[in-house]
């Protein structure tokens, strides 16, 4: 039914789009998966608000902050894994998910910072500025945020055209700085010796290593 009606009134290009699994299965799946943590947080907040649930712990502001930060870093690492997955598996279509994943990572970073500014500090700009300049882990986090803002702005097709592919690519290398800053921010925030931030840093380092090694391998093969 769907294919016949589509075939009847649509151009061949549209038919191809509808049959493209990246568009009608994988991208919606990315949307659902990336919004699921936020939906869960929404449920925890509603549960706490209406039913006195304790899912947000005794310190809800801190819990929300950690939760959003965790997911921002996780999705950023998934976005950074797209290129290595493409290189290693040869599945080229995966690259089409990169922008969406990057924007979702940025989305969670913005929520994380918004929670900090609104609920944690309640717009106390003096205290926020104090944090940024005096507390190194917040300084590092801010560097990450500042790297991601221009990338989010220039993520549209229009901007790629305007800047030219070469310049655009060069600018978007800043995501590596953001990834490093995110991992370092997490590592510095934890007290004592803890494995969890090292796992994130290790994943980031591996993803960067694959990027560095693959072009070398190709060069070697060509000779």
């Amino acid at each position, binding site marked *: 039914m769907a294919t016949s009606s589509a075939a009847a009134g649509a151009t061949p290009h549209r038919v191809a789009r509808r049959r493209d699994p990246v568009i009608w299965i994988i991208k919606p799946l990315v949307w659902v998966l990336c919004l699921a943590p936020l939906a869960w947080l929404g449920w925890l907040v509603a549960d706490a608000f209406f039913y006195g649930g304790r899912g947000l712990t*005794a310190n*809800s502001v*801190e819990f929300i902050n950690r939760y959003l930060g965790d997911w921002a870093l996780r999705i950023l690492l998934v976005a950074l894994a797209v290129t290595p997955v493409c290189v290693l598996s040869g599945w080229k279509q995966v690259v089409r998910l990169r922008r969406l994943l990057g924007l979702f990572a940025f989305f969670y970073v913005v929520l994380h910072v918004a929670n900090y500014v609104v609920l944690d500090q309640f717009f106390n700009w003096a205290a926020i500025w104090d*944090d940024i300049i*005096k*507390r190194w882990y917040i300084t590092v986090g801010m560097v990450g945020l500042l790297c991601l803002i221009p990338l989010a702005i220039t993520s549209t097709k229009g901007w790629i055209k305007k800047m030219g592919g070469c310049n655009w690519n060069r600018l978007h290398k800043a995501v590596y700085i953001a990834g490093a800053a995110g991992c370092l921010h997490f590592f510095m925030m934890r007290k004592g010796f803890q494995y969890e931030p090292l796992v994130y840093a290790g994943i980031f380092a591996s993803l960067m290593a694959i990027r560095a090694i693959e072009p070398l391998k190709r060069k070697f093969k060509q000779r």
Partner: protein
Amino acid sequence: MLIKSRNASDVLSSEITPKSVFEKRRSFLKTAAFAGAGIAAGALPTLPAYAARTPLSGVQKSKWSAESLPENDPITDYEDVTSYNNFYEFGTGKRDPKENAQEFKVTPWEISVEGACMKPGKISFEDLIKPETLEERVYRLRCVEAWSMVVPWVGVSLASVLKKFEPTSDAKYVAFETLFDPERMPGQRQPVLKWPYKEGLRIHEAMHPLSILGVGMYGEVMPNQNGAPVRLVMPWKYGFKSIKSIVKIKFQKTIPPTSWNDAAAREYGFYSNVNPAVRHPRWSQDSERRIGEIFKRKTLMFNGYAEEVASLYEGMDMRKWF
């Protein structure tokens, strides 16, 4: 937003049977069934004298009562105080201690008293506490992580306990140690800190009337996740100074090493008095979030106990000796 208004008729969350209690009832029923079976088999199981949520009897009121605190310092919700803990021996997450400490057995419990005193030796927890007066001490607790609570501790005067061992003139400091047993304290299987956890006080601080050995809270025995069976409570110092599950007390002449100071000396000093003027590399210490509230409040010098304790530090540069 998380601001919640309550009608008088609303059921308070504190009135709802917490899941842990509910489950405990179940496990009690199970135990009872076992006991029945045991009697039938002719073997009576020995019931533990120390079980969670056991009320303590003979607790005296003290001058540090709930009424003595200002209106904006109401006692923090029991559920919050027992489910939001920094007790890395049971995991680094705030909810880990409640989850991982339930099976922790604190009987028998022995404390070793050592060093510069006339009567060193090993003493059971019961023998240590029994001769003392149990007092209710409602204190503010300020964590170095910029959150705070008001806890109705039950405890005994630390000075009174320490004097029994007759410290000598060499006893300038008192060192404390937490139990080291990775089998029972799963958090110790990770190298988060150099275990066992160590803390220390200057002898004058230890002998101060505010200093207590906490053995309970909310009129009941100390919950495992809060440092059962016996912990230090030093209300004018950051929470990490109040070492939990103590097994060793040592009088000594030299300044004792302390766990967080060993891990990051720049961040955690030996004294660690609550001081809004001395900033911390991680947290601004000039304000704090009271558990149960959203917006922060100003932190008070010595956590509001300046009148009582400031004289201990007269002439000291608090920025240097942070």
